[in-house]
C-alpha cells in the first residue's frame, strides 16, 4: 500500500529530517511510529499525503508516486491528523468542520448528516456540534480532528500524536477506533510517544532516530528491548520494567495485562513459599 524508497528530505532551512528511509507498509496494517523529539516522524507522515515531497528517493501510496500526484488526488486516499490539530480548522462550527470534507467529496447530504453525527458522537463531541472549533479544549480539538478522518475514512490514515490531550477512557476509545478502521481494511500509521498506549495496542512499531529507521518489528520485540529503547529516548512500558525486575522469582518480561501479571506473581510466590 505504501512504500518509501531511500527517501531523503531536507527542509529549506537546510535541516536534513529524513535520511535514507526505506519501508513498506501493507494494506490493513497498524503501524506506530516512535522515536525521540525531532527524529523525523512528522516529516515522514507529511510525505504520505504529499504535503512534503522527497528531495531524493520516492514515496508511493496506493500505486501513486507522490511527486507526480496533486495534493487533491492524494487527499482522496490519505487523511492526516496534524500534531497541532487546531491548524487544520477553518470552519465556524464543529459540525461544519466535519461535514466539509464529505461535501467536498460529493457525498449526498443525507449521508453527510449521518456520518457527521456518528463521528461526533463516537468522539464524545455531540454536545459541541454548534461550538466554534477554536474554542474547544486541547483534547477536544484533537478528537475533532480525529472525527473528521473517521467520518471520511480514507484508505490511508496518518495520525500525528493522536493520544495527546486524551484521558484513559478516550485512549481506549481511540484504540477501538483504530481496530475498527483496520477491520474495514484501512491502513493506519500513528506517531506517538505514549508507550503505555502502544503496549496496549500492540501494533507493528517503527523506531526512528535522526531521520533514519533504526528498528522495525512487533510490539514485544521492540518494547522489551531495553538497549534499543534507551538508544532513542524511549522508556519501557511500566509492565515491561516490572516483569523484568521480578525476574528473580522466575517471571519473564512481558507486556501482559496487570491482572495476568498479578496472577503470575502470586503463583510464583506460592510456589516459592511452599518450596522454601
Amino acid at each position, binding site marked *: 500500500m505504501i512504500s518509501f524508497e531511500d527517501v531523503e528530505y531536507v527542509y529549506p532551512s537546510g535541516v536534513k529530517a529524513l535520511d535514507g528511509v526505506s519501508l513498506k507498509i501493507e494494506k490493513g496494517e497498524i503501524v506506530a511510529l516512535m522515536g525521540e523529539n525531532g527524529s523525523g516522524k512528522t516529516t515522514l507522515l507529511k510525505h504520505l499525503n504529499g504535503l512534503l515531497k522527497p528531495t531524493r528517493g520516492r514515496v508511493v501510496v496506493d500505486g501513486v508516486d507522490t511527486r507526480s500526484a496533486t495534493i487533491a488526488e492524494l487527499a482522496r486516499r490519505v487523511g492526516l491528523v496534524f500534531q497541532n490539530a487546531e491548524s487544520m480548522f477553518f470552519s465556524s462550527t464543529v459540525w461544519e468542520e466535519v461535514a466539509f470534507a464529505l461535501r467536498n467529496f460529493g457525498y449526498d447530504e443525507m449521508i453527510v448528516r449521518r456520518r457527521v453525527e456518528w463521528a461526533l458522537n463516537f468522539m464524545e463531541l455531540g454536545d459541541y456540534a454548534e461550538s466554534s472549533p477554536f474554542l474547544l479544549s486541547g483534547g477536544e480539538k484533537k478528537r475533532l480532528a480525529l472525527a473528521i478522518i473517521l467520518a471520511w475514512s480514507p484508505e490511508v490514515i496518518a495520525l500525528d500524536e493522536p493520544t495527546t*490531550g486524551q484521558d484513559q477512557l478516550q485512549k481506549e476509545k481511540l484504540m477501538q477506533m483504530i481496530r475498527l478502521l483496520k477491520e474495514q481494511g484501512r491502513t493506519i500509521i500513528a506517531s506517538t510517544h505514549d508507550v503505555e498506549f502502544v503496549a496496549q495496542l500492540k501494533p507493528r512499531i517503527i523506531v526512528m532516530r535522526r531521520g533514519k529507521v533504526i528498528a522495525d518489528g512487533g510490539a514485544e520485540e521492540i518494547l522489551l528491548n531495553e538497549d534499543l529503547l534507551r538508544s532513542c529516548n524511549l522508556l519501557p512500558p511500566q509492565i515491561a520494567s*516490572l516483569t523484568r525486575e521480578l525476574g528473580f522469582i522466575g517471571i519473564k518480561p512481558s507486556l501482559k495485562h496487570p491482572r495476568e501479571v498479578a496472577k503470575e506473581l502470586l503463583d510464583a510466590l506460592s510456589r516459592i*513459599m511452599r518450596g522454601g
Partner: protein
Amino acid sequence: MLGTDRREAGGEAEGAPAIIHVENLSFRYYGSEQYALRDVNLVVRRGEFVVLAGRSGCGKTTLLRCLNGLIPNFYEGEMLGRVLVDGMDTRYTPTHILSQAAGMVFQNPDNQLFALSVEADIAFPLENLGFPREIILERINWALKALKIEDLRYRSPFELSGGQKQKVAIASVLAMKPKILLLDEPTSSLDPVSARNLIESIVELNKREGLTIIISEHRLEHLLPHADRLIVMDRGMIVRDGDPRKILRDEDLLVYGVAPPKVSEVARCVNAHRGCLKFEEIPLTVHEFVEKVRRLIG
C-alpha cells in the same frame, strides 16, 4: 521563601503559608451555557507539588487560566467567587503582574513562541522585567540545560518539531523562576526520556527553590511518585483531593479517565486475590513494588 526544603524538614508543605486561595469559584465562558468550573474551593500551600487530573474537557485548563489571571482578564465570561494568588485578587491585578508570580506553560506551545530564535524567546520576558544582561544569560543557559536543548539555541522556534517547541516554551517559563509554576499537560508532546527529564527538573525546582507546582497531566506514572497531592476534576468540579497513594488505594479512578501507574494497578489486582501478598500502601513505582516482594520472601 527560597531554599526551604520541606521534605528534608520532614513533612509536606502542611505548615507552610497558603499561596493560592480559590473560593467558591465558578466560571462560564462567554457564549456557552455550561459552567466550565463549578463551585471550586482550593487552598494551595507554598512549596506544594499538586497534580491535576481528569477527563479531557473537565476544566483543568480553565482552572489554570484562573490561577494566572487569564480568566477573567483575558477570557470573557461570567466569574463567581474569587481567586487570590500570592495575596493578589486576580480580578483587580493586571496579568503581567500576576504572570510574574504564577508562570504558565500552555498546552499548545504554538501560542507561546514568537521570537526569531529560541534564545530570544527565552530572553524576551526577562528583558521586559529589566533583568541585567548577565543574569539573563545565566538564566538562558540554565533553562536550556535543564531541558537539554542547548543545540536549539539559535534555531527559529517556528522550524522546530512539536516536542522541541514544547521544550522551548517550558524553558522560557522556567527561566522566569516564578514562585508558582503552572504547567498544562507539559509532557504531552515530549518523548519519554525528555518527559522524565522535565519532571526531574521540576521536582528539583520544587525541592531546592521551594517553587509551588501545579501540573495537569494524563500520563501520571513518572509524576505521581513526586506529588504531595492529587486533585481529580470532573465536569468542572473537584471530586478528589488528597494523598495520591490513599486515593489510588481506595478506588478505581478510571471513571474519571485517570489511569493509575500500571504497578499500582497490578498491586490492586494482587490485593483483590487476598493471597500471600498484600499491599497496605499502594506502590507508585516499580522499585517500591519489587521491594515489597523482596521483603516478603526474605
